[in-house]
């Protein structure tokens, strides 16, 4: 093998590696794909049947990019998502950190949910968020249930932790006390 040939091979290998490693790039502009949402505008949801939406090439790109995911994390707090869904545990809205998805848990389906809103209270964010922001949010939402690749996730935000409070008092079971000292039923 001539040295020139070897050099070319090396250059090719280097290029391949380079292209594989864009997943940390701070891509501030949206992905170079036409900005259209993945689903038809009307809902195609059916109870009990997981909605199958067309795969969108952006799904993987956003989900595998740690910067996009961290932007999603930022938006999750700034757009008050955490007000309803807490840090994944839910509240006014359903939990996002469990395995149950009422309206589908794929990137495309989550974007559709954010975009269209859902009948039991999820507001539509169309026109309130850009599509890029919805993709970022969807990537972060999926990370709450640990679905994307682990090496893309951040361990924690600089925010109050959502784990058990350090000051938690004893978790011993408490037996209801009665001042008269009587326990249980008097049948």
């Amino acid at each position, binding site marked *: 093998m001539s040295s020139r040939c070897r050099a070319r091979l090396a250059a090719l290998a280097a290029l391949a590696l380079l292209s594989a490693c864009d997943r940390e790039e701070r891509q501030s502009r949206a992905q170079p794909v036409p900005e259209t949402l993945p689903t038809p505008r009307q809902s195609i949801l059916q109870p009990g049947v997981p909605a199958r939406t067309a795969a969108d090439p952006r799904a993987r790109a956003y989900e595998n990019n740690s910067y996009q995911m961290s932007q999603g994390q930022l938006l999750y707090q700034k*757009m008050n998502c955490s007000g309803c869904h807490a840090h994944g545990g839910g509240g006014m809205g359903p939990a996002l950190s469990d395995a149950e998805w009422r309206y589908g848990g794929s990137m495309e389906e989550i974007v559709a949910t954010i975009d269209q809103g859902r009948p039991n209270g999820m507001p539509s964010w169309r026109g309130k968020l850009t599509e890029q922001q919805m993709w970022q949010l969807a990537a972060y939402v999926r990370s709450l249930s640990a679905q994307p690749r682990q090496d893309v996730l951040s361990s924690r935000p600089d925010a109050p932790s959502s784990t058990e409070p350090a000051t938690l008092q004893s978790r011993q079971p408490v037996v209801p006390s009665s001042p008269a000292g009587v326990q249980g039923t008097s049948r």
Partner: protein
Amino acid sequence: MTGGGGLQGEQFNRLFTLFMGITGFFYVLVIVGMLAGIAIRGRAAGTERGERLARTALLGWIAAVVLGLTVLTVGSYASERRVSAAIPARPPLEVQITANQWWWDITYKNAVPANELRTANELHLPVGVPVKVTLKSNDVIHSFWIPSLAGKQDLIPGRVNDLLLLPTRTGQFRGQCAEFCGTQHAHMALDVTVEPVASFRRWQQAQLAPAAPPSTPLAQAGHDLVMSQQCASCHAIAGTPASARFGPDLTHLASRRSIAAGTLPMTRGHLYAWIADPQGVKPGNNMPYIGFDSAKLHAVVAYLQGLK
């Protein structure tokens, strides 16, 4: 030298002159000594007398260095104390500045909360009035620095710092973030205006008023877009339903000197550029590309330009 717009700046200039004098003297001494030593080749070479002389001179040199350093240290302390003595610990004006990636959120505190004034990226100070700048951060560490007024203080998440300033000269200055704070650290500037008390009061009154209602049909269309589209998800405009706090307050946007924390001068053309392609102007900042078509862009710019 850009110091000198405020008390600290004046003190800085005086102290710097002292330091330059003494350090300059020692520098000249060293260089002349070395050049002489080289030029006068081996004049004292090998002599016992030379060795003894050198040891004695060393003691003298140490004494001189210690003396010089003492003067500088004391001068430095004195300068600091003079500044803190000149500014009361609780001055009449308090401004709270909260740093964000990559812009400044500014609130003029007031005993009556309803008179608290909120603006962004532009600081007005009355000349000759001591001011306490309270510094907080919403994300990473930033540093507040107006070179002309001198003094620098970090804004650290989880802590509240403050900086006492006393502007002594009117003028327009540029402040900026001095601690590396991420992608757009370079474009995190602050327009500072030091003005006479009367015009400061006028500015304050004007800024306290709610936003001007749109005056033309085009501006009205822009207003409706700003309220119904992505803009209102992040920005607040007093007197309108837009009340979000993710981005800078836009109530009197058009009265400011620059766009996007000192990135572009405030002109009609730059407003177009900024809204049409924020990521081209300031890559990595949190303002998204919205994709207004030209008609909508015209309307939005027309409305924003009316926010005097």
